């Protein structure tokens, strides 16, 4: 791995990696059973530098922001490299957001350039939200069909400049990217991550989860997410490793990819890990009784032998078939983005597949703690990574309080939101809003959330205020959306729900018509954003002088109701 302490920006070691690892394979791109592309670091450079030159020729200047909205593929990384090379600031957006949401964030970020895939551009072009004024000057589209109507956009594949681009150096404290941790609809939360944040975050991994030339990382989580940007791009590149992209996420092809490309590491969100567990369990259950008995015995032996630490060599021999299905070279599955249930972690560990359970916020660049597997613990999210301090603020009698993080990986702040930044970073500590406890061995255990939000098993952060727009002009006196656990604190990281607090008109009853109206509007939300039930309160909601609802005060008032009876399910 390159010595990152020597560099001031993330563009610089990436540039160096393309020279130093020139003959290694950096990218493999597959679609279904076909391998579409295999690029060496040298070939990557041959594509990225002419793009960087074209950007510079088009007037893209130091500090300009450029957004990427793409699925995981080689052109994502080539584009990101070119933007960083030219001294730009990356604005990676989620390709799964609606086009209107993407326009909203494009506007908020002030992006001057957009690089996207043609099918995504088709959605963007047709969206109502397009009328929002943006700073966009240049739009590049990839994979446009030969006869495509390109309008004002340029083909990415043809956007190339002649001659060498000029590398633009950046300082450690300069912003490298603006990553939206959520907040479409209500208040966009654009985390400004600096070059230092990335360099320090990356330097924390090798002692725990090393990468090397030829190691293969399967990139499944979207690259716009801070986790995949780090583990599926920056970290493997500065190690000379290979990133494998799949253009399809259909489960049968993802399964095949493990064995076909002999994957070393992969990162999954809890939902996918659980699906994988279900699939494996179904296969174990289908074994004939004699084989199942044998399998269970081998698993018990493996469990006993790996109690104090993983022993991959032994596990691979004992449970060969299981390990062969994962390619036989898997070092660990990294899981993050949301809370994973201990029994799922234990299930994989017992099979000899270590799951590195990690915890972190985009605001802290990505990972603040990770399981070091010495020994494996299913009940915690591990210990702080090297260089990262974690403490528990205002612990109660059981030692549980708000988790705070201090390190060089903590963001510079939220874009255009000093107020929210001041609430989130207090005296240099990132207040996570999560409730936890540090045990005597230094492991962090999570117990619930202090803030008004939920995180789905897919790793999506849902802020109640962001989904209120769908209930606008609902025929009631007033309403407000809450995470149920925010009103009635519960020591749990699973089964989180949203509720709609309603104050009806004086003569109004909560009848079938209203319930139906709420259900209809609720159904307009994507399934993971839907509210679970309604809470009625027959009094005026507390409001500020500017008539905004005082959420904290209202939550305190609602907390006086009995949770069990107060939530009327839809």
């Amino acid at each position, binding site marked *: 791995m390159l010595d990152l302490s020597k560099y001031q920006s993330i563009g610089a070691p990436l540039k160096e990696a393309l020279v130093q690892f020139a003959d290694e394979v950096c990218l493999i791109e597959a679609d279904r059973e076909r391998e579409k592309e295999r690029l060496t670091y040298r070939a990557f450079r041959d594509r990225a530098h002419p793009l960087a030159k074209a950007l510079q020729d088009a007037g893209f200047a130091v500090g300009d922001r450029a957004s990427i909205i793409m699925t995981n593929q080689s052109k994502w990384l080539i584009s990101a490299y070119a933007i960083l090379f030219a001294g730009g600031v990356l604005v990676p957006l989620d390709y799964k957001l609606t086009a209107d949401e993407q326009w909203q964030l494009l506007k908020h970020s002030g992006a001057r350039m957009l690089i996207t895939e043609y099918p995504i551009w088709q959605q963007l072009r047709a969206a109502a939200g397009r009328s929002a004024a943006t700073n966009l000057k240049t739009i590049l589209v990839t994979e446009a069909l030969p006869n495509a109507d390109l309008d004002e956009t340029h083909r990415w594949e043809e956007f190339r400049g002649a001659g060498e681009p000029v590398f633009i150096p950046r300082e450690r404290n300069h912003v490298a990217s603006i990553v939206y941790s959520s907040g479409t609809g209500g208040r966009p939360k654009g985390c400004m991550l600096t070059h230092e944040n990335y360099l320090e975050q990356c330097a924390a991994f090798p002692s725990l989860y090393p990468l090397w030339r030829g190691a293969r990382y399967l990139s499944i989580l979207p690259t716009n997410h801070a986790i995949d940007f780090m583990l599926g791009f920056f970290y493997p590149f500065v190690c000379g490793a290979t990133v494998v992209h799949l253009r*399809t996420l259909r489960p049968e092809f993802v399964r095949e990819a493990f064995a076909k490309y002999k994957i070393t590491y992969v990162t999954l969100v809890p939902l996918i890990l659980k*699906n994988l567990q279900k699939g494996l369990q179904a296969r174990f259950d289908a074994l004939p009784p004699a084989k199942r008995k044998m399998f269970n015995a081998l698993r018990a032996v493996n469990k006993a032998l790996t109690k104090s630490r993983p022993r991959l060599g032994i596990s691979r021999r004992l449970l060969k078939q299981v390990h062969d299905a994962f390619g036989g070279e898997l070092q660990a599955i990294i899981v993050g983005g949301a809370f994973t249930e201990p029994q799922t972690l234990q299930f994989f560990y017992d099979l000899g597949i270590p799951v590195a359970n990690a915890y972190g916020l985009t605001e802290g660049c990505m990972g603040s703690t990770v399981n070091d597997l010495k020994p494996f613990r299913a009940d915690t999210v591990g210990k702080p990574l090297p260089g990262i301090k974690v403490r528990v603020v205002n612990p109660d009698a059981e030692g549980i309080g708000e988790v705070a993080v201090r390190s060089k990986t903590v963001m510079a702040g939220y874009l255009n939101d000093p107020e929210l930044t001041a609430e989130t970073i207090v005296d240099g500590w990132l207040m996570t809003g999560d409730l936890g406890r540090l045990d005597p061995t230094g492991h962090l255990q999570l117990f619930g959330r202090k803030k008004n939000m939920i995180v789905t098993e897919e790793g999506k952060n849902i802020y109640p205020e962001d989904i209120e727009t769908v209930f606008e002009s609902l025929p009631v006196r007033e309403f407000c959306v809450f995470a149920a656990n925010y009103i009635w604190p519960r020591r749990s990281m699973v089964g989180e729900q949203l509720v709609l607090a309603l104050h009806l008109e004086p003569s109004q009853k909560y009848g079938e018509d209203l319930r139906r109206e709420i259900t209809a509007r609720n159904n307009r939300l994507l399934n993971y954003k839907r509210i679970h039930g309604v809470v009625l309160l027959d009094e005026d909601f507390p409001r500020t002088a500017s008539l905004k609802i005082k959420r904290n005060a209202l939550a305190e008032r609602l907390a006086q109701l009995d949770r069990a009876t107060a939530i009327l399910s839809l």
Partner: protein
Amino acid sequence: MRTLGQTTQEILDLASKHFNVPAGSLAPDDDFFKKLGIDSLQTLEMLSRLENHFGIELPDYEVQGVSDFKTLAERIQSRL
């Protein structure tokens, strides 16, 4: 060669059969995530069925962001 209308109708029929909703309850403008209450993994399953039916291959990235039957039908039609 099917018309766009025929393609759309076949998609609606297949989706209603696959997800067990009454035939005729789905319309071209419906958002399939919301109307069928399905997640993205289930959507991939539906796409695999449609590919088999129409004998085409529909890359994931081409249907990324598509959420209504009408647009899906257009994407399929362009590959028939």
